[in-house]
């Protein structure tokens, strides 16, 4: 490591002792915590690409078929409603054609149609809307509850901590899919938002344990003592001193919780315990069309591709955030950059100014 450091340093021009800062320090010198995190995050190519792709999917899903919930109805730019049944064109084969030449373009039914003529693009967009909404709701409710319970248990310790953690153990003993199926069986008929809220009520356990651990270690640190000595209230210590320091752990696990949530939701809907017909979600579309795979594979491919794209991008964003928040993260120069730096140093020593 030390060889590496000295190789990457500009050789001292006055012949004095070498600059003692390491590579890591050099990269972050003069930057605030937020700036360091942002810089590291934007260096993670997978995460940046994922953010762009995910934003595209979300905009596409919500703008194309419009927003329809709680009685509000904003039409989108796509011509078909997901329950409309236009006449079948060419057996419903997808009209999407990206090969330049005749027929190039998206056509009237880019993802094809099902047996009765429903437009699969509209259906998949509506499904993606529902799945994304459930994912975000589970993430928000789960994170909120997890932070609340974890921080109370970790900060106040004692009997309250013991009770809250045993309660967490009770919930964590039940596999999420199992509790999700029971909850979905009970509230799935009330629509996607309700399902998302109720699933979130059981998704906070892992986060609560993490946050509690973080609070237990942070509350013993000197800066918390300093704040307490200068008369800060518990509320102020929690919100101004400890919580900002554990925000990395929270954001990362919230992201991974959301990635798990979309897979759980689609699986539940697939099993029939999630979003119920006539409403739809990506899992419902796969479930309804799996038998038609041999004859109409497009009914099956597109919803699956959207599940994977959403889950994969969220996972990558989570990975990028973890790298960005991890203080031990070291950005190693590639062999190429190292060779360049060595050559530069050799050059500099040969031809002193």
């Amino acid at each position: 490591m030390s060889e590496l450091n000295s190789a990457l340093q500009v050789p001292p021009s006055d012949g004095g002792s070498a600059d003692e800062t390491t590579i890591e320090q050099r990269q972050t010198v003069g930057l605030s915590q937020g700036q360091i995190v942002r810089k590291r995050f934007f260096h993670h190519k997978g995460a940046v690409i994922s953010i762009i792709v995910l934003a595209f999917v979300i905009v596409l899903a919500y703008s194309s078929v419009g927003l329809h919930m709680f009685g509000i109805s904003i039409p989108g730019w796509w011509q078909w409603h997901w329950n409309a049944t236009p006449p079948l064109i060419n057996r419903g084969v997808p009209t999407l054609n990206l090969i330049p030449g005749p027929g190039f373009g998206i056509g009237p039914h880019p993802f094809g149609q099902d047996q009765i003529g429903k437009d699969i693009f509209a259906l998949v967009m509506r499904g993606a809307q529902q799945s994304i909404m459930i994912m975000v709701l589970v993430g928000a409710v789960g994170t909120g509850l997890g932070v609340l319970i974890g921080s109370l248990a970790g900060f106040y310790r004692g009997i309250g901590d013991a009770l809250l953690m045993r309660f967490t153990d009770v919930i964590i003993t039940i596999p999420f899919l199992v509790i999700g199926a029971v909850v979905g069986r009970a509230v799935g008929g009330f629509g996607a938002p309700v399902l998302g809220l109720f699933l979130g009520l059981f998704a906070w356990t892992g986060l609560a344990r993490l946050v509690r651990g973080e609070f237990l270690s942070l509350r013993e640190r000197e800066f918390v003592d300093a704040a307490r000595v200068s008369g800060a209230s518990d509320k102020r210590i929690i919100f101004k001193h400890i919580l900002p320091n554990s925000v990395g752990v929270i954001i990362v696990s919230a992201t991974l919780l959301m990635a798990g949530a979309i897979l759980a939701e689609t699986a539940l809907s697939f099993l029939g315990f999630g979003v119920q017909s006539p409403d739809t979600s990506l899992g419902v579309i796969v479930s309804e069309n799996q038998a038609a795979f041999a004859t109409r594979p497009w009914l099956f491919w597109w919803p699956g591709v959207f599940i994977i794209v959403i889950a994969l991008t969220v996972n990558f964003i989570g990975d990028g955030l973890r790298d960005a928040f991890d203080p031990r993260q070291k950005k190693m120069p590639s062999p190429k950059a190292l060779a360049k730096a060595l050559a530069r140093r050799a050059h500099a020593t040969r031809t002193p100014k």
Partner: protein
Amino acid sequence: MASFVTRRLIAAFFVLLAATFLMYMLVALSGDPLEELRQGNAPNKQQLMDSLSMRLNLDVPPFLRYFLWLGGVGQCFVGQCDFGVNVQGLPVLTLLEQAMGSTLQLVTGAQIIAIVVGLIVGITTALRQYSGYDYSITFASFLFFSLPIFWVAVLLKQYIAIGFNNWLADPLIGVPVVIGISIVSGLLWMSFLGGAAKRRLVTLGVATASTAAMLVYFELTNWFTTPNVGIVGVAVTAIAAALGVTAISVGLANKHAVRGALVTAVVGIALYYPMTYFVFPGMNLPLFLALAVGAIIGGGVIGYFFGGRDRWQSARTSAIVAFIIGAVIALEGFLMYWNAYFNSTRINGRPIATIGSATPNLGGNFWIQGIDTFTHLLLPTIAIILISFASLTRYTRASMLEVMNQDYIRTARSKGLTQRTVVVRHALRNALIPISTVIALDIGALIGGAVITETVFGWSGMGQLFLEGLRHIDPNPVMAFFVVTGLLAVVFNLVADLLYASLDPRIRVS
């Protein structure tokens, strides 16, 4: 230690008690169990509803019904479990036993393969950090994390089962396919073995050429219609296993161990004809297991006598070699009966099954039944491996990287130890400590974790017990499922903690 375990067990008991109560209430309140009958139009509707209410004590409110259920389950402590009856009136305990057997059959093999593959890939990615291989595996494991298993299952059914069955009707590998597979395999081996540019090129060439040669050999000898290993195949794999296992476990410099492993290989090869002609036709399961154990012990004894100074190391190596050779010879046993299976009237030339756990009324001897189990296990096993492989690889890679950056690894290297000794003896053993707890937790979640896989592939295991119970708002089967999974989760949680404490001397349980 004892007080730690006792305290944990008492806490776990109360946690489980509360969890079962929560679960029971959720299931019982999730709908109306009489709805199906009420909306039906059977002439004796009222009578049916009354008898169902009687059977499931539906006249008791759920809060109190839980204690009736708990009373039945509590009798497990005196050896008379009573999990109640389901909607159809069948005792849940019998259903539970069948379901557990079926699920264990499904998940055991898959989990073992996933652990072995996950460990190997995780270790190699850590050793080749930031290489093309590392990046591809990282991307692949992210992809596998994000796969909806019910979707993958349909793809597997279509392309692996139906596509492969169609292909088997006329097994012909085209020239472009041979070239494609060979180059992919060459690239895989190259990135896997790594090294300097020249060595990479040599690996690429050798791997590509040998894959192509193998495919052409299969094609020319009609291997896919009459698959067999043959004495040559057994000999080659035996010698390769002997050298490979020795190289990894004790190093080829240890002449005693090499000699022991090679003698084991020769004994294995010599046993090929006697086994296939005299022992295999009358095979049954106890004999099969006895032979497997015998192979391991026999190999161990050979290794022990050739062992020189470090007998147990050599015995261990030879035992592993003997097990591998035994597996190859057993594979030959299955392949000998492949044609009988393939052409049987129940199979009719379409061996890979897409659904269920066995072909009904197949008959046949041990080998044919074995092939049948294998063809039914293939698809769900692939699906389970894809999912668990991803997380295991990531854990192993992270843990291995953590260890490889420690000072004692640098010390070991500067002492002049070989790469094998540093990686296997200094790094791997320490890297395995955190992984062992992850594996323990995985095993705890095994029985309950395959609900979706079981549903898609039509296995009537624990998943079906749970889902059917839930569909009919029938708490008894659901609770039986949950008692087993919850108990396993709690027990393996404790096992993971104890394992960590016993493997890592820095951790004390108190």
